[in-house]
C-alpha cells in the first residue's frame, strides 16, 4: 500500500498579475481526515480546484500523484474517475428533483440502456441514506430538506460514485451545531469505511477535533503541517501559523458607553409568505440602547433573520403586526426605503445573493442606498462618489486594486466590508447585522469586530445576529436568545455563557413539547 493516497508536489499557479500558489505541497495519507486551513485568499480553493480538474493540467506547474500514479486532469470528469469528489460551499443539487434523482444525477442507474431503472435507483439510495444516517424518503424533493440534510445528500451523491477522496469546502459554515456535529461524526465514520477526507474549514475547534493532519496555507504557500499525536495541536498555534502573528485577543476591547433606550419592538408577529397560517415570529419584545451591541443567539431556523427583515420595512413576511418605537416615537414602515429614511439598516447574512450587486464596482455598491446624498440637483456627482468610495476603502481597509474593482472579484471578508461601508454611509441609528462574520477568516473577523466597536462608540445601536456563540459573548453588551420565533431568554453579557444559552434553548423546546 502506498504511503500517501494523494500527493500534490510543488504546485504553482499564476493568475494574471498574482501568484496564487507558490510551490505548495500537500500529502494526504489514506483513511485520514486531512484539514486544510488558511485565511481567505490563502489559496485553499485554488488548490482544490486544481485537484478536482477545474483548472486543467497545463495551467499550473507541479504534479498531482494519486495512489502513486502521476495524474493529468484535463476535465472535472478525469478527477472524478480517480475517485475524487469535491463538495462546494454552494451545493450542487437540483432543488426541484428528488433525493434519489439527485444522488444519481449524471450517474443514472439503468440496465445497460437509456432507460432508468427506478427500483435499482431507489434501493441503492435507501442503502446509502442509512449509511449516513439520513432518515428521509427517497422521493422527497431536495428543496424540502434543511441545509444540513442537503449537505448529507451531497455526500451520498459522492458515495454513489465510489469516492475515495472526499473534499469538503466549508461544509459546516451554514449549519447549526447539531447538524455540524452529525456531519463531523459522519466523516469519522466514513474514515473507518476507507474514505479519505480533505476538510477545508474556518472553524478551528472542528479541525482540532477530527483532523488527523492539518496543513496550513498562508499567502499561497504551505507554512506548516501538524500531525495528531506528534505535534501539540491547539487553536492558538493554528491561528498563529495562519495569520503569521499571534492574535492574543480575538475580540478587540471597547469602551462601553450604553445610553438610553432608543429602539423598542413590542408584540411583533409575523407570518410566513409561503403559508399564511404559519407563524414565524410570535409576540417578540425587545429593545436596544444607544451605543449598545445587542446579540440575538439561536439555532438555525429560530426566526432571527426573519425578525430582522420584517422590522426592516417589511422585507420579509405577511400579516405583520406590532409596534416599533424609535426614540419614543412610533414608526410605521411600509417598505425598505422607509426604514432607511428612518435610520434603520440591515446587512444581510447572504452577501452574494442579496447583499451586493456583484457585477458592479465597489463605489457603486457603497453608494446604492444613499444616492440622494451624493447628488447635485438631479445628477449623481461621480467625483463625490469616487471620493466616498476611496474614503471607505481606506477606512475599512478593503483590499482591492481600486474602487472601480467589481465586488464579485473580492474575497468574502472584503465583500463584507463593502456591505458594511454601504450601511455605514447610509448613516443609520440602528444597524442590524446578520451573521456578519460568516465564512470569513480570523484576521478579517477581527477587523469586522473593530468596525462594530467603532460604530457603538459613536453612539450607534447594533443588533447582531450570529450562530457563533463565542463571538456574541465576545463583543455584545446584552444577548437575547431566540427559539421557534420567540424570545426565550435575555442575559447581560457578564452573566451569560454558552451553556446558559443552550440551556435556555433546550428549556424552551421542552415547554413546547409539554
Amino acid at each position: 500500500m502506498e504511503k500517501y493516497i494523494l500527493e500534490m508536489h510543488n504546485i504553482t499557479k499564476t493568475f494574471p498579475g498574482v501568484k496564487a500558489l507558490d510551490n505548495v505541497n500537500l500529502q494526504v495519507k489514506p483513511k485520514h481526515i486531512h484539514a486544510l486551513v488558511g485565511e481567505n485568499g490563502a489559496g485553499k480553493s485554488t488548490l482544490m480546484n486544481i485537484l478536482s480538474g477545474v483548472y486543467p493540467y497545463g495551467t499550473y506547474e507541479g504534479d498531482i500523484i494519486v495512489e502513486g500514479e502521476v495524474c493529468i486532469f484535463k476535465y472535472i470528469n478525469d478527477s472524478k474517475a480517480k475517485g475524487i469528489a469535491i463538495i462546494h460551499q454552494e451545493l450542487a443539487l437540483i432543488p426541484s428533483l428528488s433525493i434519489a434523482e439527485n444522488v444519481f444525477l449524471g450517474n443514472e442507474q439503468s440496465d445497460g440502456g437509456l432507460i432508468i431503472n427506478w427500483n435499482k435507483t431507489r434501493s441503492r439510495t435507501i442503502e446509502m441514506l442509512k449509511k449516513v444516517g439520513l432518515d428521509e424518503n427517497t422521493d422527497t424533493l431536495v428543496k424540502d430538506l434543511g441545509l444540513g440534510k442537503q449537505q448529507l445528500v451531497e455526500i451520498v451523491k459522492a458515495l454513489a460514485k465510489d469516492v475515495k477522496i472526499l473534499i469538503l469546502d466549508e461544509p459546516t459554515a451554514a449549519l447549526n451545531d447539531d447538524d455540524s456535529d452529525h456531519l463531523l461524526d459522519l466523516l469519522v465514520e466514513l474514515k473507518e469505511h476507507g474514505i479519505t477526507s480533505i476538510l477545508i474549514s474556518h472553524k478551528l475547534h472542528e479541525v482540532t477535533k477530527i483532523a488527523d493532519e492539518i496543513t496550513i496555507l498562508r499567502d499561497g504557500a504551505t507554512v506548516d503541517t501538524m500531525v495528531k499525536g506528534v505535534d501539540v495541536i491547539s487553536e492558538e498555534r493554528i491561528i498563529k501559523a495562519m495569520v503569521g502573528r499571534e492574535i492574543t485577543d480575538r475580540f478587540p476591547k471597547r469602551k462601553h458607553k450604553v445610553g438610553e433606550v432608543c429602539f423598542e419592538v413590542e408584540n411583533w408577529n409575523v407570518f410566513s409568505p409561503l403559508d399564511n397560517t404559519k407563524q414565524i415570529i410570535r409576540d417578540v419584545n425587545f429593545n436596544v440602547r444607544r451605543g449598545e451591541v445587542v446579540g440575538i443567539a439561536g439555532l438555525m431556523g429560530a426566526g432571527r433573520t426573519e425578525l430582522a427583515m420584517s422590522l426592516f420595512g417589511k422585507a420579509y413576511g405577511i400579516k405583520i403586526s406590532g409596534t416599533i418605537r424609535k426614540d419614543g416615537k412610533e414608526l410605521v414602515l411600509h417598505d425598505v426605503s422607509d426604514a432607511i429614511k428612518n435610520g434603520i439598516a440591515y446587512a444581510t447574512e447572504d452577501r452574494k445573493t442579496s447583499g451586493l450587486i456583484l457585477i458592479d464596482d465597489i463605489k457603486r455598491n457603497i453608494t446604492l442606498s444613499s444616492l440622494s446624498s451624493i447628488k447635485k440637483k438631479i445628477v449623481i456627482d461621480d467625483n463625490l462618489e469616487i471620493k466616498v468610495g476611496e474614503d471607505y476603502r481606506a477606512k475599512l481597509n478593503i483590499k482591492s486594486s481600486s474602487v472601480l474593482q467589481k465586488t464579485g472579484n473580492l474575497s468574502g471578508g472584503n465583500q463584507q466590508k463593502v456591505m458594511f461601508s454601504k450601511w455605514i454611509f447610509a448613516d443609520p441609528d440602528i444597524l442590524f447585522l446578520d451573521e456578519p462574520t460568516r465564512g470569513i477568516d480570523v484576521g478579517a473577523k477581527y477587523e469586522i469586530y473593530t468596525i462594530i466597536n467603532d460604530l457603538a462608540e459613536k453612539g450607534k445601536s447594533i443588533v447582531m445576529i450570529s450562530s457563533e456563540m463565542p463571538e456574541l459573548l465576545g463583543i455584545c453588551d446584552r444577548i437575547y436568545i431566540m427559539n421557534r420565533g420567540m424570545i426565550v431568554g435575555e442575559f447581560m453579557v457578564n452573566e451569560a455563557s454558552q451553556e446558559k444559552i443552550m440551556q435556555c434553548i433546550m428549556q424552551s423546546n421542552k415547554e413546547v413539547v409539554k
Partner: protein
Amino acid sequence: MKSLRSMLRGNIRQYAMIIAFIVVAIIFEFLTKGILLQPLNISNLIQQNAYVMILATGMLLCILTMGNIDLSVGSVVGFVGAISAILILKMDVPVWIALIISLLVGFVIGIWHGWWIAYIGVPAFIVTLAGLLIFRGLTMTALGGLSLAPLPDSYTFLAAGFIPDFVQFQLFGKAFNLLAFLAGTVATILFIINEISKRRNRRKYNFEVPVFWIFALKIVLISLVIMSFTYALSVYRGIPMVLVIVVALVLIYSFVTNKTIPGRHIYAFGGNPKAARLSGIKTKKVLFWVYVNMGVLAALAGIVFTGRLNSATPKGGYGFELDAIAACFIGGASTTGGVGTVIGAIVGGLLMGVLNNGMAIMGVPIDLQQTIKGLVLLIAVGFDVVSKAKSKV
C-alpha cells in the same frame, strides 16, 4: 510588446461594436459600389431606421431589468399608426392633437403591461407576447384590413421632413446647408471637449487611462466620422427632423441611465434584484416605469414609421420587436440584465440599418435578408461571449 497587445485587446473589446459597425459600413460601401455612403442615401438610412433606434432605446431599459424583453412593440407601432391615421383622416382631428393622443395611447399601453408585469407578477415574456397578439388584432380591427393614406404633410414632417436652413447658401455653385454644417461642427467640438475632460478626471483619481495615441486616434476617428456625416447631410437637404428626435433621445436617455438616481436603480435592479430591494430600491416601481416608458417610445416609433411610410397599414410594424431586441444585444447588452448602454443599443440599431439598407440596394431578396440578419446577430453575440470567457482566464 506584450503590454501593447493586452492593452489593445482591452480597448478593442470596449470599441468592438463601433469597429464592427465601421467595418460593415465599409464592406457595404464596396458591395453597393459607393451608393451606401452617398449623401442622399445617408439621409435615407437615418429616416428609414429611426424607428429601430427609438425602439432599441426603450428596449434597452427593459433588457437591463433582468433581461426582460418587450415582444409587443411591433404591434404597438402598428396600432398607434392606425389610431393616429384614423383620428386625422376619418375624424378630422387636428394633427397636433392626434399626435398627443397617440403618445397617450402608448402611455396607457405601457401602464397596462407594467401593471401586469410589476404588480401582478406575470413574466414579461408572457405579458408582452399577449400584447403582441392583442394589439395586432386591434390594429387589424381598427383598420378593417385596409390601409389608410395619404397623411397630411404636417404629420409626415416628423419622419420625412428636413429642418430648413436659416440662409440660402451655396458652396462651389451647389446648395449647401449651413445649419447642418454648423450643428455637426459644434457636436464634434463638444465631443472632443467631453472626452478630454473625462480623461483628465480619470487621471485626477489615478485611474488607468488608455495611452495617449490610442486616445487621440479614437478622437480623430470619431470626429472624422461625425464630420463626414455632417458634410453628407449639408450637401443634401440638411438635418432630417427625425435625426433631431433620435439625437435628443440618445442624449436624454444616456444622461438618465448614467447620471441620475432612477438610472442607477435600473442597473442595480438588473444586477441583483434581491440586493436592490434590500438597499431600499422600489423594484416594482422600477419595473413598472420601464414598461410605461417602452409604451411611450413604441408610440413615438409608430408615429415616425407611419409618417415615413405615409400610410397606416394593418401589417405596419410587423416584426419590429425583433429588430429592436437584436439591436440591443448586438450593442452589448447582457441577456441576464444589468449590463448595456443606450449608445450601444443605438450603434446596434445603426448596424441593423446599414444591413437593411445595404442589402436592399444590392437587391438581396427579402427572405435572404432575414437569414443574414440572423447570422449577424448570432456572430455578434457569440463574439462577445467568447471574448468575455477569454478575458476571465
